C-alpha cells in the first residue's frame, strides 16, 4: 500500500510493454509464423540435408568445446585476478571484457590475420602441421574468443566472497592444497562455473561476425548455422531461413532453461556440500 505514493506505474509499464512488443515480440512472432508455414516433414527434410547437419555439428560441437575451454581458462584467469597481486593486474582485469567491447567483425579479421599461415601465430603453428585459419579449428578459436569473458565475470564476485576460514580450516585439519581446492573450493564455485559455461555456450552457438572470417566457410566442412541462414536469405528462401532460425531460437531457449535449472540444482548441491 505504501507503493501507492509513487506515480507512473501505468505509463512506464505500458510504454515498456508496447516497445518490447513492437521491437522484440512481434518480429519473433513473424519468425514463428513463417516457420510454421513450411510443415514438419519439410522441416525435417531441411534439417537432415548433409550440409545442414554438418553446420549444426560445427555450431554445436565447436561451441561446446569452446565453452569447456573457457571454463578452464576462465577459472585460471578469474582465480589469478582475484587471489594474487601482481603488477598490471588491474589492466588485465579491464582487458578481460575486450571480447564484449570489440566489434565481432574486427575480432574476425584480426584473428584471421593472426592465424593465417603467414600470420604471427599461424606461421608458428604451420610447421607443426596445424592449420587454424580457414578450417573448423578457426571457428573454434573465434568461439573461444567471444565467450571468454562470461566465465571470468560470473566467477569473480563468488570467488571474492568465499570465506577464507573454510580453506584455513581444511588446511589446518591436514588437507593438502589440491585436496582443499578440489574438495572445498571447487564445489562452491560450481554454480558460477556452470552459469558461465552456459552463457559462453549460448554466445558461441549464435556467433556470426568473428567466425565467418576465420572459418573459410567451406560447405560440409567449416560452415556454421547462422551463415546458412544468411545464405538462404540471400537466395530469398525466407521459409528455409525462418526454419533454421526457429531451430536456433529453440536451442537458445533450451539453454536459458538449462541455465536456470542448473543454477537451482547446483545451489542446492553447494548448500549440501557446505
Amino acid at each position, binding site marked *: 500500500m*505504501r*507503493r501507492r505514493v*509513487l506515480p*507512473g*506505474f501505468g505509463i*512506464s*509499464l505500458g*510504454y*515498456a510493454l508496447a516497445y*518490447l512488443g513492437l*521491437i*522484440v515480440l*512481434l*518480429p*519473433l512472432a*513473424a*519468425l514463428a509464423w513463417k516457420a510454421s508455414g513450411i510443415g514438419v516433414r519439410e522441416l525435417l527434410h531441411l534439417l537432415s540435408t548433409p550440409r545442414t547437419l554438418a553446420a549444426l555439428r560445427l555450431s554445436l560441437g565447436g561451441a561446446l568445446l569452446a565453452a569447456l575451454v573457457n571454463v578452464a581458462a576462465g577459472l*585460471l584467469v578469474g582465480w*589469478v*585476478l582475484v587471489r*594474487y597481486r601482481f603488477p598490471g593486474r588491474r589492466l*588485465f582485469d*579491464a*582487458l*578481460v571484457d*575486450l571480447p*564484449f*567491447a*570489440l*566489434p*565481432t*567483425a*574486427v575480432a574476425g*579479421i*584480426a584473428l584471421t*590475420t*593472426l592465424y593465417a599461415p603467414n*600470420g*604471427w601465430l599461424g606461421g608458428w603453428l604451420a610447421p607443426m602441421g596445424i592449420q587454424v585459419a580457414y578450417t573448423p579449428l578457426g571457428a573454434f578459436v573465434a568461439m*573461444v574468443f567471444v565467450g*571468454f569473458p562470461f566465465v571470468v*565475470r*560470473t566467477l569473480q564476485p563468488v570467488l571474492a566472497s568465499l570465506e*577464507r576460514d573454510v580453506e*584455513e580450516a581444511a588446511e589446518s585439519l591436514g588437507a*593438502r*592444497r589440491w585436496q582443499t581446492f578440489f574438495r572445498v573450493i571447487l564445489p562452491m564455485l560450481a554454480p558460477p562455473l556452470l552459469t558461465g559455461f552456459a552463457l559462453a555456450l*549460448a554466445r558461441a552457438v*549464435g556467433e*556470426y*561476425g568473428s567466425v565467418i572470417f576465420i572459418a573459410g566457410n567451406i560447405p560440409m566442412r567449416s560452415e556454421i548455422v547462422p551463415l546458412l*541462414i*544468411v545464405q538462404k*536469405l540471400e537466395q530469398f528462401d525466407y521459409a528455409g*531461413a*525462418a526454419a533454421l*532460425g526457429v531451430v*536456433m*531460437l529453440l536451442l*537458445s531457449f533450451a539453454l536459458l532453461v538449462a541455465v536456470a535449472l542448473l543454477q537451482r540444482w547446483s545451489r542446492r548441491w553447494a548448500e549440501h556440500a557446505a
Partner: protein
Amino acid sequence: MSGRHPSRPWGWPRRLVHLGLILAALVFLMLFLVLPLATVFVEAFRQGVSPYVASIQQPEALSAIRLTLLVAVIAVPLNVVFGVAAAWAMARFDFPGKALLGAFIDLPFSVSPVISGLVYVLLFGAQGWFGPWLDAHGVKIIFAVPGLVLATIFITLPFVARELIPLMQSQGSEEEEAARVLGASGWQMFFRVTLPNIRWGLLYGVLLCNARAMGEFGAVSVVSGHIRGLTTTMPLEVEMRYNEYDYVGAFAVASLLALLALLTLGIKTLLEWRYGDELAHAPGGH
C-alpha cells in the same frame, strides 16, 4: 596462516605455484586478447601513416562513419527511454508476470545476431508480412537505414534496462516516497531524486549500449544489402574492404572501432573504480 605450513616436504613451495599460475593466466590473456588487438593496429599501419590516413578519408569510409553515428544516435536514446521506463515499473511496483517480462527483456542477448536481422526481413522484406504494402507506398525499410536502426535497437535493447533494474531495486524507494509526501510532482521527483541517484548506472548502461550499437555486425549485415555509401556502417565497411583484399583499408576502419572499444573499456573501468557502489554489476552483458 601460511606460516603454519610453510611448505610440505613433497609439495612445491607456495610462491612457485602462485607464480606459475599467474604466468599461465598472462600467457593466455596475451595470446587470446592482446595479440588480436595488437594485430589490428599493426596491420592498419603496415604501409605507414599516409596510406592509413588516406583510406580513412575515402568517401565510403566517411559515409560509413556518418551512418554508424546516425544509427547509434537514434537507437541509444530510444533504448535509454525504454530502459528507464522498464526499470521504474519493475523496480518500484509489483505486478503479475514481472519475472516473465524480465526474461523477455533479456531475450535479445540470447538469440543469434543473425536472427535479430532475419525477423525484420520476415516482417518488412520484399516477401515479408508488410513487404507488399510498404512497396506499394514507396517505403523502404530493409536494405535501407530504417532496417539498420531497427536491427540495432533490437540487439542493444537490454543494456540500459539490465543495468538499471537491479540498481533501482537495491536503492529502494524511500527517498522518492519522501519527495512525494513533501509535495513534489511526479516529474520533479524523477528529475531531482531518481535521476541523480541512478546517473552513474545510467551512464554505464549507455556506454555499453553505444559500444554495441556502433560495433554490431551480424544483425545489420542481414538487413543492410551492403549498398556502399548508403547502407554500410563501419563494421560492414570493414567486411567489404577485407573481402576486396584492401587489408590496410579494412584494418584502418577496424582500428577506429578498436579505439572505440578501448575507450569504452577505459571509461567503464573508471566508472567501476570511482562509483562502484553506485553501479549494479550485472554479470555478463555482451
